[in-house]
């Protein structure tokens, strides 16, 4: 009898454990999994609400309509006015292929539905929801179109932004795709080895090459490591590895300023070893490497090595090679930070949200996300970058009567031809626009191919955009 009762209780405990695990699982499911599952495009609940609502329009900063919805019988059709031009910004919204980019991340705003469905139902009782909100972008349609034309036929990325407010004026990533003909092109798009669905600006990770020397320079200035009588012979040996200059011929007797202007690799390699990885990475992280960048679209984290790094890794990092990987957006933020007295502001794509009655219900706010350097260091960097454009490697970015600050980069690419880079801003005394240009596997120097594109964009932006 005693034994029997003991065993009965064991079975009871077993069943109780099953039930308790059920409760735990259900709670876990609801807390951690539910939101992802709900967003699955097979969930008909998403569509049943959406199909009754006129999806809001998306317009550029000057009010030009980029995407809108139109009634077609019982359903609404989404029209994208400019084909490929906004594929990586606006994206697409299809019942069968799901959503991407702003159409995805601002879905609830575009449909004017709140997170809680109970709240929606309540609100629907009072005032049936029939029309979504309009998104006003920070994009300037003219500059966007102009920038894409400059990049046409190439692979790469362009960002142009306001360094003081974070407003993105243009954001181009090529190759791209046409959201209007997505259904017909889907198989080709998915199978294309150049990945047209990838937004290179936010999600492409590249070695920054010499453009990264502005970060190295900032670290050297801050820590007062200035090799004033450095004799550059065109190469240096670090831990048995030879590190060469791009042209391979020496720069002679130089200091930090000249090293940046002429992009001298041995100088930065040698001085970064004095700097050490801890001080170096601390500055790099203030320039948003290894950091999440909060944006209206998801951004990949740029990478700066911190652990298990040898001398060669530090030397390579100082010239933007080796393990350092950045997104073009991050490089634009670095240029913006220097332009904006050392403060990096949050990049913004959505300027305003306007309700169907024309009321502005949300406006972006300027937010400093990192104090990268102090104003003195920023000024010194700015002057060096101006020289770099005036007399150094960035001559092709020069504009008459406007002082342009910039830095070129040619990144050795272990898996193909070199990437060409240019980052910069203008006018140097009162920066209105900052740019980052990346030409993927271009096979030429940043000075010869990326700098002229950046120049034209800066010129066009200064000419046409008025705040």
């Amino acid at each position, binding site marked *: 009898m005693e034994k029997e009762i003991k065993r009965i209780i064991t079975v009871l405990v077993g*069943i109780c454990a099953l039930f308790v695990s059920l409760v735990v699982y259900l709670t876990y499911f609801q807390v951690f999994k539910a939101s992802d599952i709900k967003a699955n495009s097979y969930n008909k609940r998403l569509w049943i609400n959406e199909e009754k609502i006129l999806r809001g329009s998306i317009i550029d900063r000057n009010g030009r309509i980029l995407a809108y919805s139109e009634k077609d019988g019982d359903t609404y059709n989404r029209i994208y006015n400019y084909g490929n031009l906004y594929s990586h910004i606006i994206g697409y919204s299809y019942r069968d292929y799901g959503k991407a980019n702003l159409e995805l991340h601002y879905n609830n705003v575009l449909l004017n539905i709140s997170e809680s469905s109970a709240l929606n139902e309540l609100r629907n009782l009072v005032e049936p929801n029939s029309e979504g909100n309009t998104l006003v972008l920070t994009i300037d349609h003219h500059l966007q179109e102009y920038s894409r034309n400059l990049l046409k036929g190439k692979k790469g990325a362009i960002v142009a932004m306001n360094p003081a407010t974070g407003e993105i004026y243009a954001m181009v990533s090529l190759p791209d795709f046409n959201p209007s003909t997505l259904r017909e092109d889907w198989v080709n798009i998915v199978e294309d080895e150049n990945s047209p669905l990838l937004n290179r600006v936010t999600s492409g990770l590249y070695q920054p090459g010499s453009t990264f020397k502005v970060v190295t320079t900032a670290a050297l200035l801050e820590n007062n490591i200035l090799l004033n009588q450095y004799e550059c012979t065109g190469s240096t040996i670090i831990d048995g590895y030879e590190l060469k200059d791009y042209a391979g011929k020496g720069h002679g007797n130089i200091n930090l300023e000249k090293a940046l202007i002429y992009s001298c690799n041995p100088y930065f390699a040698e001085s970064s070893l004095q700097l050490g990885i801890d001080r170096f990475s601390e500055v790099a992280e203030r320039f948003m490497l290894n950091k999440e960048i909060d944006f209206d679209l998801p951004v990949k984290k740029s990478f700066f090595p911190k652990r298990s790094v040898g001398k060669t890794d530090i030397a390579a990092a100082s010239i933007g090679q080796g393990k350092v990987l950045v997104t073009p957006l991050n490089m634009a933020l670095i240029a913006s930070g220097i332009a904006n007295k050392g403060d990096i502001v949050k990049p913004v794509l959505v300027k305003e949200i306007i309700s169907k009655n024309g009321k502005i219900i949300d406006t972006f706010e300027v937010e400093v996300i990192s104090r990268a350097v102090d104003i003195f260091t920023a000024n010194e960097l700015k002057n060096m970058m101006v020289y770099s454009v005036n007399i150094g490697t960035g001559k092709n970015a020069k504009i008459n009567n406007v002082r342009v600050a910039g830095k070129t980069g040619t990144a050795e690419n272990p898996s193909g031809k070199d990437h060409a880079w240019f980052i910069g801003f203008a006018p140097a005394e009162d920066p209105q626009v900052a740019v980052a240009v990346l030409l993927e596997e271009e096979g030429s120097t940043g000075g010869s191919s990326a700098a002229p594109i950046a120049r034209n964009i800066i010129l066009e932006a200064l000419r046409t955009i008025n705040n």
Partner: protein
Amino acid sequence: MFSKGINYKVPRNLLFIFEMIALFLMFMYYKNSLDRSTIIYGLSLIFIVYISNFLLLKITTGDNYIFLIVTMLSSIGIIMIYRINPQQGFKQIVWIGLGIVLFFATYFMIKKIKSLKSWFIYYFFASIALFGMTLLLGERFKGAINWISIGGITFQPTEVIKILTIFLIASYYANYDKFKEKKWGNYYLVGIMYLFIFFLFLQRDLGSVLIFSSLFLALQYIYHEDRKLVLLNFAVLILSSILGYIIFPHVRIRFEIWINPWEHIDTTGYQITQSLFAIAEGGFFGTGLGLGHPDFIPEVSKDFIFSAICEEMGILTGIGIIMLFLILVYRGFKISINQKNKFFRIVALGISILFGIQSFIIFGGVVKMIPLTGITIPFVSYGGSSMLSSFIALGILQVASEELDIEEV
């Protein structure tokens, strides 16, 4: 009397209030298609439930919570079923009413019969006959044969066999000393159980295979004296389930769907993913009655009623239902431990384990914690066979909760 009002501390009254509010909500939801008979049926069900709970208090000397718990479960079930499909809800009201009648009938009948314990051989042959009938006359439904139709009435013989099996196991162990003396007597039950499980496997009724195996293993664990045999059985059942996975594609498919239903979302994984959408959509508090879309789930009023409840009433109600089953099982075990008569002690255990395991398998299945096998939640899901057999089982449990004047032989 009126000055006293309703005593809110009496659970019966709380249940009454709950039902009235839910009924009112339902009528509001269907206010355009409401007819008088629905209101009369709804109100009469509430009345029957109230009176039954009240009467039972006077009649029985045993447990007066299990019936209350079960009427609560049925109430939640009926609200959900009625909301999904008023016609089904209407029928379900009839089934619950009939179930309550059968509960009392079983209660009085079982109390009168004194020789239940010695009918081992009848239980066996009755079960075999029912299995034979299923295989001969059964209709394949969703891959499993578990329905037969006689004169226009369809029912699931497995539901009856469950109760017969509990009686069979109970009478075996109640007479264990006699069986032990016979040659091979130690192995009678093991042989029979494997035969039953084999039959269920032939019917491709995997859910029932799971229920019968666990029921058998649990009771054998408690009562069998040959401990090696218990261990061996455990090993054999695990081994054969692995073997079943390798040999039979329909078993393998269930596992694959469980591991990654999203891959098969258009085909075999459709039901479970729809169920997950519903539960995810509900959140903790639910969308509110009539405000969700549980009708997107196929077979929602039977196997997936739990997902529908989670969507519209929230997982807090879902957890509430799980807790109600937990209390029901706990009361069942308590009844068993207090029962002096060995036969009824085992019967009470068997019924409690049955309620517990069956509800766990389907709860776990629809939330994708374990592979999904289509079975009903006792007292909650739509369906006559399940409802009636569950109420019969409850009637037996009610008898077992009383002090019985049967001689222990």
